[in-house]
């Protein structure tokens, strides 16, 4: 079961994890990205390429299902404006064994960073700046 969603609404962690647990898996792994404060950041804004983003995330989820023995994959990404402490992204994987669930979870977040058309803008009060892509993300994605 694949669930992919790009939504301005907050991510409901408990609901998403419960749905994965109900897949009958022995193990559920998750990664949640949260807007981090510090460096004067007050909010984050996410823009995406409607249509292409959904396809890119579905393709990633299908690749993970093919590569590992998974019973469920959930990939959620928020778009629009988010305050410090809010969730940006959620990856959840369900598998009979922990190794598969954990590996697929790491794969999905690494590849999402380079393979899905999102752009992030940091707000510091009234000032906004586009986040630059990091070389380390390309390296992390290439190890798969």
């Amino acid at each position, binding site marked *: 079961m694949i669930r992919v969603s790009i939504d301005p609404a907050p991510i409901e962690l408990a609901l998403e994890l419960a749905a994965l647990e109900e897949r009958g898996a022995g193990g559920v792994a998750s990664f949640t990205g949260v807007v981090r404060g510090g460096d004067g950041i007050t909010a984050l804004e996410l823009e995406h390429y409607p249509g*292409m983003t959904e396809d890119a995330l579905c393709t990633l989820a299908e690749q993970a299902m093919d590569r590992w023995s998974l019973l469920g994959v959930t990939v959620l990404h928020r778009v629009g404006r988010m305050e410090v402490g809010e969730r940006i992204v959620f990856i959840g994987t369900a598998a009979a064994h922990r190794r598969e669930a954990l590996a697929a979870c790491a794969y999905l977040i690494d590849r999402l*960073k380079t393979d899905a058309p999102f752009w992030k803008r940091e707000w510091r009060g009234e000032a906004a700046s586009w*986040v630059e*892509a990091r070389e380390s993300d390309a390296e992390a994605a290439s190890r798969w």
Partner: protein
Amino acid sequence: MELLYFAWVREAVGVGQERVDPPEAVYNVADLICWLAGQSPGHAAAFADPTKLRAAIDQRFVSLDTPLHGAKEVALFPPVTGG
């Protein structure tokens, strides 16, 4: 050909979407970027440095040397920064 712009490319050009009809000589994505840079001061700011740009043709990431042949929708944007 339908063009889409995202992030600071969209902001520099001033619109997120436009329809263009480039000349025959505009063969690949890099040619398109070069041609677009001459269209307005906003376009010039957005398309001056192709190394800062990435592209998608018909919603698939492509390298800048990819031919435009048959492309319906071309998107130009900075490297992605999701997650």
